[in-house]
């Protein structure tokens, strides 16, 4: 079974090639079968592979399969080789499984779009590139996948390219992530220069053997890798591209900008966790970046009016939780939250897509409302997703994953009370913005008539993801609940180390859980009271001058776009305007002028009169003879 590993990324890539070459010649039916089928078969293969892998545990924690040599130059041998361990398998399962559901949903969502086969070609290419990213055995191949998903993200954000705003959003996403990618490339150069390899496992071994804990090199490398990760995962300070990336079709937001690509940063850090563990400073920075991002994005999410932008900020915020968990060494908790987040966030995006589809493209929350009776299925699944995102206790998967993070942030030897307080405040914010969105969308009077109801191919993925968002959490039930269940963390600990908990804090687990449950329920209660129970109080609150100012500030994402415009865009445009005449090009123009002057000089000798030429010949001949005779 393990021999068929290469087929998993190869199938979506083959689907991409067929769809790209076939283009508009393929019928919609054929394009849908190829696009969805290739990812579906990959998902089935991943399932079979998971069974084979689990049989091998714990004796064989990892498999390596070399497919062929990519290049072999001057001692640098890069193979197209795949590495399969628990972390990669989790990622693959989410990418192919959730990816398949989203592809299926897209058949309904994109049914009337002109670029139907182009859409599936890009989506298949994305799935292939993302699988290469998570399965890569060396950092070079990982970087190939990394750039591949970046390119697909660009193509899909700007999918409706006729609107210049979409093209602008696509370019913004591309350029901002490029800043991080450059840092990551520098990290790769540094690693190869210092450790002489790009093979991930070999690198980790050599780093552990050659570098001491807390020395400068691992810190620099870890921070550069973190630069790549914050770019891809839209964390502070490179988070500005993700809300604008919502210009793409909604299934793209669900697949790329919620479930998979934006978690590539988390994957990179988890994959190179040994380097991060060598640098306590870098670990603290990861945790602080995560905590700051989850709070900033949470506040921004409170004030958005576009349903997809609320979800975008919530994605940034939830990835902030993953980074916070990584930073305190809670590797299993971060991975678990990644998986659960992929389920419920894909569900929320797809459900939001169903709402947008039903309202003929309306994305403004204040023009929605009263959809509970119109779209009962969407209402139910949206409720499941929202509850999971807000971590409503006991019944949702989001509770188990988020609670695991909050608890381990509190109890880990790298954690702290301040980080824990940030995580808890984030949980409250999450609950508030989620249910604000939910109530605006589904309660109150109907404001826009419903045009389309979702078909079976849109409803089925919603139902499956809703079930997963509720029950997937039972893979991991905390110790305090009568011993609990630790299926997931045992599985992931074959690849990632266990969290180091402080013994003094371990007894407080139940208190910590009560606090996070109170935060989630408190947020829900607050929104319910302000929006449904006594709307006058809510309206009075929003009319406060301070609240209005804050709301405008948070709506624009804490003014980061303004700041970057001031710091980078305006000076760049200024310099570009100075250099409008192209100073460097002036040197070459000068050379051309010199050539032209010589031409004019030589041209003047050509009078066109045969007697002048004869005179020239005579004088020349006489001069040569004189020279020969007298000199």
């Amino acid at each position, binding site marked *: 079974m393990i021999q068929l590993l290469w087929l998993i990324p190869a199938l979506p890539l083959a689907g991409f090639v067929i769809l790209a070459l076939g283009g508009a010649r393929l019928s919609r039916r054929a394009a849908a079968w190829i696009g969805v089928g290739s990812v579906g078969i990959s998902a089935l293969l991943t399932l079979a592979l998971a069974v084979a892998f689990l049989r091998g545990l714990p004796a064989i924690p990892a498999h390596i399969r070399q497919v062929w040599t990519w290049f072999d130059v001057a001692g640098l041998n890069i193979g197209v080789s795949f590495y399969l361990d628990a972390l990669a398998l989790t990622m693959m399962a989410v990418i192919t499984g959730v990816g398949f559901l989203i592809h299926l949903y897209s058949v309904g969502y994109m049914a009337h779009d002109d670029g139907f086969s182009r859409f599936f070609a890009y989506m298949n290419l994305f799935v292939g590139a993302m699988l290469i990213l998570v399965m890569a055995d060396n950092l070079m191949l990982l970087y190939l996948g990394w750039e591949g998903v970046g390119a697909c993200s660009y193509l899909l954000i700007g999918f409706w390219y006729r609107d210049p705003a979409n093209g602008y959003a696509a370019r913004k996403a591309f350029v901002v992530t490029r800043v991080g990618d450059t840092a990551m490339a520098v990290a790769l150069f540094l690693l190869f220069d210092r450790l002489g390899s790009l093979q991930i496992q070999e690198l980790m071994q050599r780093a552990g053997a050659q570098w001491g804990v807390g020395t400068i090199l691992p810190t620099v490398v870890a921070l550069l890798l973190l630069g790549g990760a914050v770019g891809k995962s839209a964390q502070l300070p490179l988070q500005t591209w993700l809300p604008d990336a919502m210009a793409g079709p909604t299934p793209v937001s669900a697949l790329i900008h919620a479930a998979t690509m934006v978690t590539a940063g988390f994957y990179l850090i988890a994959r190179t966790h040994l380097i991060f563990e060598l640098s306590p400073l870098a670990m603290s920075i990861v945790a602080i970046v995560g905590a700051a991002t989850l709070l900033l994005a949470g506040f921004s999410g409170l004030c958005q009016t576009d349903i997809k932008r609320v979800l975008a900020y919530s994605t940034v915020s939830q990835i902030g939780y993953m980074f916070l968990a990584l930073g305190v060494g809670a590797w299993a908790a971060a991975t678990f939250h990644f998986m659960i987040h992929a389920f419920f966030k894909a569900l929320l995006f797809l459900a939001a897509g169903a709402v947008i589809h039903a309202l003929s493209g309306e994305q403004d929350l204040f023009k929605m409302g009263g959809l509970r009776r119109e779209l009962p299925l969407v209402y139910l699944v949206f409720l499941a997703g929202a509850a999971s995102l807000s971590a409503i206790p006991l019944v949702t998967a989001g509770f188990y994953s988020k609670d695991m993070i909050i608890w381990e942030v509190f109890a880990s030897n790298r954690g702290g009370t301040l980080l824990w307080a940030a995580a808890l405040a984030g949980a409250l914010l999450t609950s508030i913005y989620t249910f604000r969105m939910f109530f605006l969308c589904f309660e109150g009077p109907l404001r826009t008539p419903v045009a389309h109801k979702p078909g079976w191919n849109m409803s089925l993925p919603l139902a499956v993801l809703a079930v997963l968002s509720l029950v997937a959490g039972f893979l991991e039930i905390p110790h305090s609940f009568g011993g609990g269940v630790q299926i997931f963390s045992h599985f992931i600990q074959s690849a990632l180390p266990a969290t180091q908990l402080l013994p003094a804090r371990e007894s407080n687990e139940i208190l910590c859980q009560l606090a996070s449950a109170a935060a989630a329920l408190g947020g829900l209660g607050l929104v319910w009271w302000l929006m449904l129970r006594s709307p006058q109080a809510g309206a009075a609150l929003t009319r406060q001058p301070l609240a209005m100012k804050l709301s405008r500030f948070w709506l624009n994402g804490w003014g980061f776009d303004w700041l970057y415009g001031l710091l980078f865009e305006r000076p760049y445009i200024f310099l570009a305007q100075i250099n409008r005449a192209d100073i460097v090009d002036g040197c070459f123009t000068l050379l051309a002028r010199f050539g032209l002057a010589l031409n004019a000089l*030589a*041209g*003047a*000798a*050509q*009078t*066109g*009169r*045969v*007697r002048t030429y*004869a*005179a020239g010949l*005579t004088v020349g001949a006489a001069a040569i003879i004189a020279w020969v005779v007298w000199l």
Partner: protein
Amino acid sequence: MVTIPFSHGLLLAAALFLLGVICVLTRRNIIFMLLGLEIMLNAAGLAFVVAGARWGQPDGQIMFLIVLAMAAAEVSVGLALVLEWYHRMHSLDVDQASRLRG
């Protein structure tokens, strides 16, 4: 028999050559330019004959015959070109033909 000194013969050839050159350079009529060229060729031929007499060799006279044959060939081509050219330009003035001015 009075022999003409070598240097006199060469001076005569040089004077002829110079007259030919002046004719080519100053005349605007293309027929006269061709005549100037013939004079230059004959000057060169005379120099060959004088040199042959100086060294007592027949080669100089053989070279003169070659120059003569070449001049005949050249003038036939040249006159054919002049005819064709005259049909186009309706003039014998060479300065009219200056379309290749740079």
